[in-house]
């Protein structure tokens, strides 16, 4: 399915090349390259500290000042890394919509939902407040909020967590963006609400022909929603493939171990842990970050940063798999 999409699209929507992010001596993201194509749902998965959220923020110019960012991220040919704040602000919201984990923090508690939507609408188009309120109510209806015109006068705290996340999605849709970056949008929500919010995100992005980059730690969410998946470990993109290949023929030992450690309904076999725990990368990453926890690790794994192996459709960074040793 992904190949047909790619044939239609001559250019990726977002092209990231050799992106590096450091915080002082700590390497958060190393030599990261990937593409996001039009109309695709790309999952970015990894555990805490793997660099997935840092990547999303680096692309959007939302990292704190102490972050040292190098490399390139182009959106429709426009370079984002090092772009002036003015340019980034215009792209954020207008061409790239954002949905973050904490909807309560993203909404201003002293303004009503209506005020905030009207303000965002008027920032993008020249319409009267009355028109904007009508449009705001339409947006709330589109994201499935009941009695939308009444909800316009509610304050954020009067809505449930799931409804607030729907409002955030509505806000992200205002400027009809081509790309929506959603960073753990449902992590704080109950599973029944999570399902509604993710279904909504899938529906509205499809209806509007937008791409979605979904940052998550939940392999179930990835399996159910994403076309393509990028797996992060220790700031390195260790594997990327279409969702079927990644789940059925994982190449990198980390992806394989991660998939085995996810408990699945209907299976009562013992839990399969990955021994050890992830560590921060001090200095430049010059080895495989997963080697200390990997049962296939060999001396070569700690002697160099693993190169990229495989095909353009299914890439990975395991030296031993790449050289046919395992």
């Amino acid at each position, binding site marked *: *399915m992904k190949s047909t999409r790619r044939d239609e699209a001559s250019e990726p929507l977002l092209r990231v090349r050799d992106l590096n992010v450091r915080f002082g001596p700590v390497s958060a993201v190393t030599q990261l390259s990937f593409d996001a194509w039009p109309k695709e*749902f790309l999952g970015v998965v990894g*555990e*805490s500290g793997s660099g997935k959220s840092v990547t999303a923020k680096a692309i959007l110019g939302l990292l704190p000042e102490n972050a040292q960012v190098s490399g390139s991220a182009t959106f429709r040919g426009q370079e984002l890394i090092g772009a002036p704040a003015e340019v980034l602000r215009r792209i954020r919201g207008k061409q790239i919509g954002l949905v973050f984990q904490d909807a309560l923090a993203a909404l201003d508690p002293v303004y009503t939902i209506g005020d905030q939507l009207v303000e965002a609408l008027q920032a993008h188009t020249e319409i009267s407040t009355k028109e904007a309120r009508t449009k705001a109510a339409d947006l709330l209806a589109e994201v499935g909020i009941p009695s939308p015109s009444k909800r316009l006068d509610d304050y954020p705290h009067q809505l449930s967590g799931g409804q607030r996340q729907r409002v955030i999605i509505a806000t992200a849709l205002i400027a009809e963006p081509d790309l929506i970056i959603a960073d753990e949008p449902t992590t704080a929500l*109950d*599973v*029944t*609400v*999570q*399902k509604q919010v*993710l*279904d909504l995100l*899938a*529906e509205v*992005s*499809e209806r509007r022909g937008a791409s979605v980059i979904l940052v998550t*730690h*939940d*392999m*179930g*969410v*990835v*399996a*159910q*929603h994403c*076309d393509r998946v990028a797996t992060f470990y220790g700031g390195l993109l260790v594997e990327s493939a279409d*969702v*079927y290949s990644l*789940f059925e023929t994982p190449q990198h030992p980390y992806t394989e*171990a*991660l*998939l085995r*450690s*996810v*408990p*699945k*309904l*209907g*299976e*009562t*076999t*013992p*839990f*399969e*842990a*990955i*021994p050890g*725990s*992830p560590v921060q990368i001090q200095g430049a990453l010059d080895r495989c970050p997963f080697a200390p926890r990997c049962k296939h690790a060999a001396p070569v794994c700690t002697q160099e940063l693993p190169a990229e192996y495989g095909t353009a459709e299914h890439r990975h960074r395991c030296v031993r798999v790449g050289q046919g040793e395992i």
Partner: protein
Amino acid sequence: MTALLQVEDLVKTFGSGRQLMGTGEVTTAVDHVSFSVEAGSTLGLVGESGSGKSTTARIVARLLEADSGSVRLHGQELLTLRGRALAPIRRQVQMVFQDPFASLNPRWKVGTLVAEGLKIHSRMTRAQRRDRVVELLEMCGLPAVAAERFPHEFSGGQRQRIGIARALAVEPEVLILDEPVSALDVSIQAQILTLLTHLQQDLHLTYLFIAHDLAIVERFCDQVAVMRGGQIVEEGVPRELYANPQHEYTKTLLSAIPIPDPRRSGTTYQRR
């Protein structure tokens, strides 16, 4: 086998503090909840936020007072115990919390944290306590030198090991595990759950496991009770209950879980 822990008709309401004026609203957090746990087994209490599962756990641990109802351990009523009579119960029923860092005093060394219960509940000498702490740490997969370090020097999974060692120090019979792996990465969750499984076998522990992840409960628990709105809506052996859920809410909950297999779709909306 007889039930080690018996909970009957437990009720807990939270008021807005204005009932006297007749304007306050009362929320029934725990609404006539009954269950029992057999010695050496695990009961999973599952539900979404606000279902009353944590409130129930806190009442059983005597961290919160119930309005009415009964909690019996070995047939002895716990809820009426006060003051000094409560001390043995606090020893027998210990709690492990979701966020190990928030539940550990950051200024205390790990050795002091783990030994705190021993100071209160036993008459050990310092040397005996030190030996016991090392034994507990090693039992939980931590090196003896961990005793000399501070909680912030440990990863999330290691901190949860410290939390478990601390709970086990006073040799409890019942551990109340309140979302003990929810804050941990999936590869680490499995480590902690494996540890808890081994500890249960070795020490014949009885677990009350508060969780929202039904797949974990299926592997970890002998029995599961599904809570919603303060009530237990359905109860049984996890595999049987999941295979044939009777209550509408259990069905909704089960169908909402995203299956980590792209070829099994459940009922989730898919673009593909």
